[in-house]
């Protein structure tokens, strides 16, 4: 089976800064790929290139057989198939939880308000927040906000979900609830690319760990291999650092 995400030779420059230096990443359907690496290594930039929030300088990206970088591709249509969850949630503060979840269903997927409400409630149900449908983000805990953000993405039934440090902005006691939702998503067969420092989650749920440094993938493999016996010195140093914390 062809990979559902296939990024080849991705380069990204910000002015003179060369942030991605030829990244290749293939992700199989139902795979959970966990991305780690030092701050500034280009993890976020890579994720943001995959749904073209960031325009790669060169390379090719195919997601679910759609050439993401072709000028003929309807990018707004393509983005429905790629969910994205941000470190800072980025919920719309002027809308209720249900409003957040249903906006794209109505305006992009073209559902009626009634249809969107049904699908939106089902998505909130999946993240355990059916009873918070009419709350504003300000009335929710950080963990609940992030789960609403996940619901906002999965309501569109994406083929792939991108997570950029989804639990980094959360108080420690709220991290578990978000990871639990991510785990249930994984069990439902969702393809996921996760940038995170939650090594416990990686060990339990990841199929593959990718270590990035200075804009390149340095090393990748099953979690046990990368965490226990990394082949590269740089990987070893990094794993050593984060495990001391």
């Amino acid at each position: 089976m062809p990979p559902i995400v296939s990024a080849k030779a991705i380069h990204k420059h910000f002015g003179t800064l060369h942030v991605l230096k030829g990244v290749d990443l293939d992700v199989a359907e139902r795979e959970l790929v966990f991305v780690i690496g030092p701050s500034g290594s280009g993890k976020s930039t890579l994720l943001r290139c995959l749904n073209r929030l960031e325009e790669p300088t060169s390379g090719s990206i195919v997601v679910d057989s759609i050439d993401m970088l072709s000028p003929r591709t309807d990018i707004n249509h393509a983005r429905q198939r790629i969910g994205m969850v941000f470190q800072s949630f980025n919920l719309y503060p002027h809308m209720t939880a249900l409003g957040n979840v249903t906006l794209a269903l109505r305006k992009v997927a073209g559902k009626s308000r009634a249809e969107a409400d049904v699908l939106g409630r089902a998505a909130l149900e999946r993240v355990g927040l059916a009873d918070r449908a009419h709350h504003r983000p300000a009335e929710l805990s950080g963990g609940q906000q992030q789960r609403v953000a996940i619901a906002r993405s999965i309501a569109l039934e994406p083929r792939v979900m991108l997570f950029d440090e989804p639990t980094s902005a959360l108080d420690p006691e709220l991290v578990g609830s978000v990871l639990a939702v991510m785990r249930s998503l994984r069990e439902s067969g969702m393809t996921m690319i996760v940038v995170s420092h939650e090594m416990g989650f990686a060990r339990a749920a990841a199929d593959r760990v990718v270590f990035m440094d200075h804009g390149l993938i340095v090393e990748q493999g099953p979690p046990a291999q990368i965490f226990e016996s990394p082949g590269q010195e740089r990987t070893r140093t990094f794993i050593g650092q984060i495990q001391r914390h």
Partner: protein
Amino acid sequence: MEEIVQAFFNREIATEALPIVLQGLLNTVLLSLLVVPLGLLGGLILALLAHSRSPFIRWPLMAWVDFFRAFPPLVLLILLFAGLPFAGLELGGFACVAIAFFLNTGAYYGEILRAGIESIPRGQVEAARSTGLSGLQAMIYIVLPQAVRNVLPDLLSNTLEVVKLTALGSVVAVPELLFQARQAQSVTYNATPIVMAAVIYFLVLWPVVRLLSRLENRALAVRG
């Protein structure tokens, strides 16, 4: 004392002038209902264009906004009213007021809305775009509602200024409140109609000023 009351607070004259002055009030309200939306529309167009990344749009736009903010609206109005006929274009007072306000107050509304739009974190648009919304949809459903709320006191304050500025219409014979009061004054040889206009302006605008200061206090409380 008696003379002052006669000249400024004359009951008979007031009764006589009331219909004329009220007609002026009605016209001021109508004029405001025209120029405020017009200015807001001009401002919105400017603010959206200011969002553009192209320097070929941004630079002329900045010059435009600076020009009309620096240009005294009275001079602009008279230029349109008394100057354009020399170019063979006679527009009439009402149209000149509408155009002048579109240009002048549009520039102010534009700056306010632009600041509001810039106050919205980038992540909001990114989240919207990541779900497939277009740039325009993200602007309409996500950015503008929050932006307007953030700058509501400034928008209201500018609107107050705009309504006050409608009195400029009197210079080009638009029969708004001040113009009508002046008419009544010249017919009756008495200042009472002007006092009436002043009282009406105050009575109409004072509640807006109160609302504004409550909004401003609330904004301070939220920030603090």
